[in-house]
């Protein structure tokens, strides 16, 4: 069964460093998302992406964040200068884009900012 994959599973970085979180969505999906979950809190939407551009972004997704689909398979989230409060689990999701919106989630990347 096709699935969304994410790498790395755990990333530790120093405050102020840049990180890139990688996702490989399901191959025939067209819409891509990033969500995050701070420990003990709810899952929050960050950004949606379609046709090589951002469809929607939340207030969390400030200028420190960027997304890219550099090739036909990868979907990346870059945090330019990490802050302590960026520590969270980051989930990638994708969907085909039919009449209903079933999103398939990856296993997540745990980002720890020291």
């Amino acid at each position, binding site marked *: 069964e096709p699935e969304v994959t994410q790498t790395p599973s755990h990333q530790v970085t120093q405050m102020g460093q840049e990180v890139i979180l990688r996702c490989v969505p399901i191959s025939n999906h067209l819409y891509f998302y990033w969500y995050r979950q701070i420990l003990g809190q*709810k*899952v929050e939407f960050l950004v949606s992406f379609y046709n090589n551009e951002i469809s*929607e972004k939340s207030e969390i997704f400030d200028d420190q964040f960027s997304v890219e689909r550099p090739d036909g398979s990868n979907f990346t989230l870059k945090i330019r200068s990490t802050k302590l409060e960026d520590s969270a689990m980051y*989930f990638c999701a994708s969907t085909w884009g039919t009449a209903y*919106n079933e999103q398939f*989630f990856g296993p997540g990347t745990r980002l720890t900012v020291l």
Partner: protein
Amino acid sequence: AQSVTQLDSQVPVFEEAPVELRCNYSSSVSVYLFWYVQYPNQGLQLLLKYLSGSTLVESINGFEAEFNKSQTSFHLRKPSVHISDTAEYFCAVSARAITDKLIFGTGTRLQVFP
């Protein structure tokens, strides 16, 4: 805008007992409704969804949820839980637009005891 309220942060229950996890939503537009499950150290998995039609939806592992439009609720139930049902359960909504983001509740931790 949509919002989701899960009133119970934790629900302890003994094995083989029934359980209900409550979810209420708020939206000015028609929505799709979802329950996602997160097992320890794993990503989010879709448990069941309400899109249209019958207000009672079921999952393959015995969970069911009923959409109640008048009460804006989508409570999750299982008549007899197993130890393996121990997990975090998230209720989510999205506007009935293709590819709209998911708005999650704060989650309910179901702990099943032997």
